[in-house]
């Protein structure tokens, strides 16, 4: 019999619960606190501002300096706070994904600082980080083509699943495909994968991820609109 539920009780195409709070850091231009299942992420956006050293400047667009870092207490065994290969790689690809959403060409010779800190990790931190970073950029009022909605999809125990957690990732045949889409245009902005998969399954996983990204996008939109209540008492 085909598997219909996962060990944590979720259906195969069900996301973990997501809660979003915007404007949590008063010192940043835009910020977002996001809880995605057991993942906890805080993202801040500062800028555009002058870039130093000057030789890093691009005269045609703003440079996005995306920093993905995991706190040393975010995992069960202490992680060294020194940024490793993994942190640097995720920072690079996520920065490029975010660049496809922000209209960087409007701010030449400047830098936009994006800092994402993972406070607690339980698989899928890079997609949670990117989702939070795009919300922080929207909160900072940067002009954007759309929002980046990221989600992981893949295979666990022979079944195609959406939003893998640590249990799913630890199965023998696990495939973990982290996808980010520019919504609502549904353009692919980031694609990374762990594991082995054939062509047919690959396109099925992508379809599942797109459906998941649409769900994430709705949650993102709701959070942005709810930050500014149109009615109610003035405090």
């Amino acid at each position, binding site marked *: 019999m085909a598997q219909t539920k996962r060990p944590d009780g979720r259906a195969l195409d069900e996301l973990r619960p997501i809660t979003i709070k915007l404007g949590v850091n008063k010192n940043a231009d835009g910020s977002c606190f996001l809880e995605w299942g057991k993942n906890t992420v805080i993202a801040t956006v500062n800028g555009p501002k002058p870039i130093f050293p000057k030789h890093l400047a691009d005269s045609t667009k703003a440079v996005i300096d995306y920093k993905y870092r995991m706190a040393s207490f975010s995992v069960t065994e202490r992680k060294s706070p020194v940024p490793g290969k993994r942190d640097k790689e995720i920072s690079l690809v996520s920065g490029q994904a975010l660049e496809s959403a922000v209209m960087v060409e*409007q701010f030449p010779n400047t830098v936009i600082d994006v800092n994402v800190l993972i406070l607690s990790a339980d698989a899928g931190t890079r997609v949670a980080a990117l989702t939070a970073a795009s919300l922080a950029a*929207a909160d900072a*009022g940067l002009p*954007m083509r759309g929002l980046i909605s990221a989600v992981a999809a893949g295979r666990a125990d022979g079944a195609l699943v959406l939003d893998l957690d640590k249990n799913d990732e630890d199965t023998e045949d696990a495939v973990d495909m982290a996808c980010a889409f*520019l919504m609502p245009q549904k353009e692919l902005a980031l694609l990374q994968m762990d594991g082995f998969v054939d062509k047919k399954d690959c396109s099925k996983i992508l379809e599942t991820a797109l459906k998941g990204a649409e769900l994430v996008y709705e949650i993102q939109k709701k959070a942005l609109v709810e930050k500014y209540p149109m009615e109610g008492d*003035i405090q």
Partner: protein
Amino acid sequence: MKRIVTPGELITDKNKKVGGNVFIKDNCIYSSVLGILNESEDYVSIVPLNGPYVPEVNDAIVCIVKNVTSNGYVIDINAHNDCFFPKSLITKELRIGQMLFARVKGVDGSDITDLDNINILPVGNIIEAPSVKVPRIIGKNDSMLNVLKKYTLSNILVGRNGWIWCVSKNINLLEKAINMIILNSQKSNLTNTIEEYLKNNS
């Protein structure tokens, strides 16, 4: 009823005149920022709820001298790039930290800004606000500004870049009132509420 739109949201597929903060793709109009939709029969624009200051020609701004070099002054205008003002164009000597009121003379590709009509401001306080909230702080026909001036006994100069120069007898109250305006700018009937708040607390 006013509606809040998010970046990338489709506003209309009809052919309309467009204002700020929208972009057009495949003959459809999309929002490019998080803001309040301002739509009429033949016109669409978005009033942003937050955002960086982008200098425009003829903006009256409050700025601060950041550095003095051998041939001019580096001036902080709260935009993404500082601006340079040569010594040859001004007779008075400026000091670091001096507050100025100036007009934007020209903008080159939103990168280099030229200033004009520089006036030195007396010593005062600067309150920071997002530049997109400046129209709300001034109000229709200066209504909000007059309320602030009247109840906090202050002299206020609002720069388009979001820096507000003020000399006030009750600076704490003024700061609180401005913060209230910033946090509730999307709500209606704001001037009356602020007036009531200031009346009760002044």
